[in-house]
């Protein structure tokens, strides 16, 4: 089972974990991305996330299906938030439940690594003295 969401609302960590829990699974790996207060030593005030929504959902679904094809996993949840996020807030949560933990770890890591490479979502870091689209320039 796969649950993909892209939303402007705060992500609900507990509800996400409850969703992946299953009596047939022995291990759940959860990755939670959080907004850091600094990048390369410079204070970050907030982040702004923008998505090409339709395509982002499609790419997220693809990644989850790839993970399901590669590893024996039962449930995959992948939620990403958009809009303005303050320091400490959660832009992304990935939860993977499997009978055995190795598959859960491997799949969870694959999903976040691939999401960062392919899903059309963009992050702007807002500093006191300016702002930068992350990764835009070499």
């Amino acid at each position, binding site marked *: 089972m796969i649950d993909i969401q892209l939303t402007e609302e705060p992500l609900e960590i507990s509800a996400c974990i409850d969703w992946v829990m299953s009596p047939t699974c022995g291990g759940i790996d959860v990755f939670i*991305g959080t907004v850091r207060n600094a990048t390369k030593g410079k204070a970050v005030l907030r982040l702004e*996330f*923008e*998505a*090409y929504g*339709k*395509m*982002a959902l*499609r790419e997220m679904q693809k990644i989850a299906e790839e993970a399901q094809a590669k590893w024996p996993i039962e449930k995959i949840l992948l939620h*990403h938030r958009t809009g303005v996020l303050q320091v400490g807030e959660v*832009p*992304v949560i990935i939860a993977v439940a499997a009978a055995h933990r190795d598959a859960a770890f491997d799949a969870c890591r694959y999903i*976040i690594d691939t*999401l*960062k*490479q*392919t*899903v*059309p*979502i*963009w*992050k*702007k870091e807002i500093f006191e003295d300016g702002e930068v*689209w*992350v*990764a*835009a*320039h*070499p």
Partner: protein
Amino acid sequence: MKVNVLAFGIAKDIFGASSTEVGLAGEATVEALRTALETQYPRLKQLASFMIAVNDEYAAAGQVLTPEDEVAIIPPVSGG
């Protein structure tokens, strides 16, 4: 052929709008669109890279565009 190109992230800043229209004289390939965009908006050349998406899928350089396609420019992504 005229192509409407959706923009996100830094591409929206470069276009000064959430989409732009590009005229293609010859064959309307993704590669031709890329060249036309770079001519019209030289700042695109300063990006680490950019992709073109057609109908919500990353498109190969040789893909031919049709008037019905939804086309978008995808600057380097940075989700997560």
